[in-house]
């Protein structure tokens, strides 16, 4: 009995495996490798399928692993689009040679020049700010000024930071390297790490929670995590939003560190036209408003509607640094943080 069961199972799985890889070659489709989580992309893809009749096949995963898969699969890769968060990763995909240049008047019109690649290999589709958050009852906004200021002695034992393994911190440091130079950034990182209230653990939301719980008074986090808490019905989430406030640093000079999620068409895309259509769709007013509403991200399209939560944070100056610099400086940033003892 067991023997029969085994044989049939093996047969079943091998045939199933052959079919699953063969079906994606049909036309009227587009195949997506996405480092954006399924929940943050699938609804949009479904809308795309509905309005164009093009069906979308999706694999989500970690950016670098997907990139590795793309590289190894080479010209036979079924992927048409690579979607990822963080400009550093987009730059890495560009350097790996897995993307192709796309000429699209729509994308050019919808996306500001500093949010897309100079060689037209990738396009930013949503923006997030990595900014400072503070405890309302223990910190006056006037005490805060810039990222650089977090290294001063007034913040001794009052800062929470996420681990330097995280790409968002790596990109922030990469932008600092570009703006103030390696030497100064390293001194800054060392002093800021010395100001930490506890060793770096957890994600961005955990840092916000730590500020609310009184573990520390200031932290650095991405805006959409705060936006998510603001949109939540949960009472404990609302409490955090009540206790923790947002601050836009460096308003007198370069502005807040921004990053993007973005996409590019793969070099060996079998459905290139559909792939371009999908990216154009994602830059449309409708999709851009969706990003803002669902994940509290800032649209790249100027005219797109933004949610009341985003509006409540007020206007701010954003750092205009070309985003490919973040990717170029990534390695130096990681090495710098290792030397600074940023765990």
């Amino acid at each position, binding site marked *: 009995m067991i023997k029969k*069961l*085994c044989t049939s*199972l*093996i047969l*079943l*799985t*091998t045939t*199933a*495996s*052959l079919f*699953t*890889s*063969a079906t*994606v*070659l049909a036309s009227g489709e587009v*195949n997506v490798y996405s480092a954006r*989580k*399924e*929940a*943050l992309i699938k609804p949009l893809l479904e809308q795309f399928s509905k309005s164009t009749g093009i069906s979308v*096949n*999706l*694999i989500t*995963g*970690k*950016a*670098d*692993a*997907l990139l*590795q*898969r793309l590289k*190894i*699969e*080479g010209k*036979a*890769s*079924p992927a048409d689009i690579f979607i990822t968060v963080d400009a550093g990763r987009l730059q*890495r995909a560009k350097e790996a040679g897995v993307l192709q240049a796309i000429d699209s008047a729509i994308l050019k019109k919808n996306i500001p020049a500093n949010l897309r690649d100079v060689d037209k290999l990738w396009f930013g589709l949503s923006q997030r700010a990595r900014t400072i958050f503070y405890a309302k009852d223990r910190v006056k906004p006037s005490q805060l000024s810039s990222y650089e200021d977090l290294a001063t002695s007034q913040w001794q034992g009052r800062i929470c930071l996420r*681990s*330097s*393994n995280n790409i968002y911190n*790596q990109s922030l440091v990469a932008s600092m390297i570009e703006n103030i130079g390696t030497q100064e950034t390293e001194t800054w990182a060392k002093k800021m790490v010395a100001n930490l209230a506890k*060793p*770096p*653990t*957890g994600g*961005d939301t*955990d840092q916000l*929670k*730590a500020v609310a*719980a*009184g*573990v520390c008074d200031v932290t650095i986090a991405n805006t959409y*995590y705060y936006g998510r808490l603001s949109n939540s019905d949960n009472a404990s989430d609302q409490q955090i939003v009540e206790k923790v406030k947002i601050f836009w640093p460096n308003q007198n000079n370069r502005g807040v560190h921004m990053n993007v999620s973005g996409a590019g068409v793969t070099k060996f895309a079998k459905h290139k036209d559909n792939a371009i259509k999908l990216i154009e769709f994602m830059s449309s007013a409708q999709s851009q408003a969706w990003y803002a509403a669902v994940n509290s991200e800032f649209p790249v399209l100027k005219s797109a509607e933004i949610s009341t939560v985003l509006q409540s944070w007020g206007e701010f100056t954003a750092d205009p640094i070309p985003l490919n610099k973040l990717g170029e400086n*990534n390695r130096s940033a*990681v*090495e710098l943080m*290792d*030397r600074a003892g940023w*765990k």
Partner: protein
Amino acid sequence: MLSLASFLQQLIIRLMIAKALNYKTFNWLSGCALLIAVTLSLPIFVVSSSVFSGLGPTWVHLADTVLSDYVSNSFLLLLGVAAGTLLLGVPAAWFTSVCEFRGKVLLTWMFLLPLAFPAYIVAYTYTGLLDFAGPVQSFIREFSGLKYGEYWFFEIRSLPGAAIMLTLVLYPYVYLLTRAAFLQQSTNSLEVCRTLGYSRYRAFFHLSLPMARPAIIAGLTLALMETLADYGTVQFFGISTFTTGIFRTFYGLGDSTAAAQLASLLLSFVAMLIILERYSRRQNRYHSNSEQRAAPALIKLSKTNTCYVWLICFSPILFGFLLPAAVLLYWSVCEAVFEASAFFSLAWNSFYLAISAAVIAVLLSLLLAYARRLKSNPLVNSAVTISGLGYALPGTIIAIGILIPLAWLDHRLIDLFESFFDIEIGLLLSGSLFALLFAYTVRFLAVSMGAVQTGLDKIKPNIDNAARSLGNNNLKVLQLVHVPLMRSSLLTALLIVFVDVLKEFPATLILRPFNFNTLAVHAFELASDERLMDAAPASLMIVAVGLLPVILLSRSISKRPAMSVSKGIKQQ
């Protein structure tokens, strides 16, 4: 680097085949075994071939800054988990196999429950509970009026915290294998021991424990290898270990070669441990006395002792399963946002992948172990050991080690079909379920191999000879004698691989085909997006899918093998 790697592989494979063919008693079974073993060790070769590409500037940086942290943290974590799993696993195994007390049956299978939990999920739930922002500390602050830092509380996100989390989900490995060993121990030798005037206490330390040692070590090895491969927990707790270092080098520094070299360093460390362990018991062979008919006399516990045993045994179940499950249940019901309709296909995908992988891994292990028993082939032995190292590697690294050779093969196939038939076939192997099953087999071969091998080693070679002298061929002997005798070991192997695959996400994430999702991947995606509470329903589903086989199998594992063998021989 790639061409060098493939050249080396070819060289090694050729050498192996040439040597194996020289073997006097080469037959199809050992040929198959060799082919399988070499194929399964291929990903490990791919990863470790990076060693030959020389040390780059990244190494100078690592050695100057973080490498010592990686080594010392990994080592401390291993120590903690080793102590913890032994302390929880061995007594639990002994109580449930040798003693008789109220509620023993219940305890026996409840001990396995934590196995169904991915370590990182347990870590998330405890963090949610015990963190500064969690309900426990919030209550302390509200109740006492103290602020954070003015009272002492255990910092869950720390190295000891990580060791506890991993211990809670990994002790069942030690428990399972040790218990199987205790059950297979002959009562006769224990009785002889007692008639010689040994107390139960001394008999345990001088006879039962040494006899169970290979099994204990096998279980411990699994727990430690899983600890080394763990990424989710240590990453979440912010502890720099070898695994986080590999990914930091790979992703952050963008140096895949140095990352693979770090992984190889990890592998060589594990290989050294395994060799040391084998060397230390080189002369000891333990075959059980098979003339065991009557069920052994169990030690009846008094009511007070029963209470003590329950008290001791219940805590790992409480902290390893009931508490986290309750928290997840609370989150699922009260906090999480989820669509119930999607869960059926997720659960089905997880289930059939896990069942297929478990059956494949156990069948291959049985074939490999049996081939080794018939004719020990040093090449098969070393290939099996090498592929077994896969258990200590993070799934992502294994996945890449599999993608490289599969994509290579795919590209050759594509060229072939294009030039002969002018058809474009696309990638057939990589990015299919075949690749996934291959990855699971490599990743979890050590698990099934360990259980199967311990089971097979227990059977005296005399029995093989006797069965063969009755005119049975090797396969018949395997089918009629070994398989029934090793029933509990085989089921144990099936169970562990099944549950392990159910929990696996890093390799699944990279290798899966389009539009294919599993419970573990789903839970991980939500959790890594910092939506811990939304991940709760999927995590609970993993436990639920794993639960039924855990209960069913643990019941049949606890049955004694003697009956089924006599039945098998009668059918003859």
